[in-house]
């Protein structure tokens, strides 16, 4: 038996992407506002998770700081539009630059560390960010947050929520295409060489001419930029933000989404976000019927059970279930 492994670049992947794009763009024709809001949440989480998948799944860097960059994007957009009267589009772009610059600085310092220590330090970043947001009241509004953040929609041809839906999902699919191109290229291969979690080696990478530190910082920055875009869209869509949403729990939830969805492919971000958000909605509906009290605690227990089940039975996440063959070793006879 001649076992072979295909190159990741497959036309089928792009065909599926085209079909999914068409499906998502047609959803507003038959879905109500409630379901559209859930699908938007999935899109937001999928973008944040996709950045983490590039960082963790490709480059093997265990980061738990995505909520910080999501928050930086949201607060930058909110502050620039409400306090400095920038146009929302310009604010979104400036938020990317601000978050990217901060992430590059953090990455340069943090990524000199190795393995689990990186995740510990990035987890601490969440606490620092929360503290700063609550302390800098004049800038961030403290615990009250920021309200009256303008919508992204430049003209009122369609309802704001519909515009946000289409904008979010177009951005999500463009970032997915960008990520797939990246994974299947010189850059993606360079990232995988340093992934010591799945068969890479930093010394070998360096001897082959790969500037390991430069790539680590760049992919860390890229992951932060993804989160920043999601944060800006989130802030402009809701019209208000408050600090609670940007805590360490969000970073952990995004990491769980990445692990559950599958870190070998950017598609995993969509699967992980859809499963966990769908589960949250189900628990929201049924948990209060079965048992009294808030559903939050049951969500956490459910996330934990799902994470353990995935790690036990599907260590590569859900992605292999949607592929004929495992992502890292697509064998064919």
């Amino acid at each position: 038996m001649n076992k072979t492994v295909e190159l990741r670049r497959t036309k089928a992947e792009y065909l599926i992407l085209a079909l999914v794009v068409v499906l998502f763009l047609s959803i507003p024709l038959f879905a109500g506002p409630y379901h559209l809001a859930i699908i938007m949440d999935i899109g937001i989480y999928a973008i944040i998770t996709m950045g983490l998948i590039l960082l963790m799944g490709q480059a093997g860097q265990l980061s738990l700081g995505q909520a910080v960059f999501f928050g930086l994007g949201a607060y930058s957009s909110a502050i620039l539009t409400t306090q400095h009267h920038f146009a929302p589009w310009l604010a979104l772009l400036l938020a990317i630059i601000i978050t990217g610059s901060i992430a590059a600085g953090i990455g340069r310092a943090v990524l000199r560390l190795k393995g689990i220590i990186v995740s510990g330090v990035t987890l601490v970043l969440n606490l620092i960010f929360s503290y700063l947001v609550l302390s800098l009241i004049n800038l961030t509004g403290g615990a009250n947050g920021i309200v009256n953040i303008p919508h992204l929609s430049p003209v009122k041809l369609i309802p704001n929520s519909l515009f946000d839906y289409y904008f979010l999902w177009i951005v999500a699919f463009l970032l997915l295409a960008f990520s797939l191109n990246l994974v299947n290229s010189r850059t993606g291969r360079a990232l995988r060489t340093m992934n010591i979690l799945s068969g890479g080696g930093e010394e070998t990478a360096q001897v082959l001419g790969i500037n390991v530190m430069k790539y680590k910082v760049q992919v860390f920055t890229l992951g932060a930029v993804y989160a920043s875009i999601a944060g800006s869209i989130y802030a402009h869509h809701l019209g208000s933000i408050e600090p609670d949403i940007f805590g360490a729990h969000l970073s952990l939830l995004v990491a769980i989404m990445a692990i559950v969805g599958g870190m070998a492919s950017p598609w995993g971000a969509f699967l992980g976000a859809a499963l966990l958000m769908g589960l949250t909605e189900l628990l929201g509906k049924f948990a209060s019927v079965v048992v009294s009290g808030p559903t939050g605690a049951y969500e956490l227990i459910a996330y934990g059970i799902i994470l353990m089940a995935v790690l036990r039975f599907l260590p590569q996440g859900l992605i292999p279930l949607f592929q004929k063959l495992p992502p890292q070793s697509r064998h064919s006879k």
Partner: protein
Amino acid sequence: MRDYLSWMKDILAFTKEQMREIDSSSLLQLKNISVAFGKLTAVDGVSFTIRRGDITSIIGPNGAGKTTILKLICGLLPLSQGEIWFKQQRLDKIPPHHIASLGVTQVFQDIQLFSNMSILENVMVGCHVWTDSGFLNTGLKLPHAKAEENKIKEQAISKLSLVGLEQKAFMLPSHLSWSEQKLSGLARALAAEPDLLLLDEPYGGLMATEIAMLSRLILQLQQDGITILMVEQRTDEALEIANQVVILDSGEKVADASPTEIRSNAFIATNYLGGRVKGMSEVHHAASK
């Protein structure tokens, strides 16, 4: 006085000319290099020069510092003392990825193929040094990145063909035999188009027929203009294809000569080439008898 000055000038001009000739023929120069790990001196004041187009074999007993020297050349270990020069450029002050971009590549003793990639992808990684598409270029799939990706694939397939593994391009490293993995590692290094190829125990774990095939391949690479520095325990095979042999023992250089000179030296032949390579303590013991 004037005659004396003119004579001195002639001498200096002649010396400069000689030095230039030596410099132009030498590709790598190790000048009095040492490295210590705590109290242990792994390499102690070693100097030698590798000429362009030569095959140089470093031999010696276990713990002689052979692999350490390769790591020092690649920049994976810092020098405690001395200098390493490659193509008139000092190597010991620059990071490993920069050294690779100057034309130095290594095939590791344990190969270190990336197990998360196919053999073809592994060899494609070898092309990293001569390509430059970054995140934006590759993410947006711009024409430059597309053209480069095609070139990378062509180069990788041609190097796999050179080592006879094009049929196994899409396999994972774990599905290949040890000798095939060795050849894949070599193909990956060759994809970088190196001027100096470092081979760490290339014959290790190979059978006689595979060793013969690899030797032919190494000689072919030499004919193609690649300079080779290899570390090898199998002295017969190492001497067979080498133009220059350096013997190390306990971190010190014992000899640096042609294979013929090495073989004709009774002391070296007895202590370093006879069946197995002896350690320095055994050599001293033999010499004192």
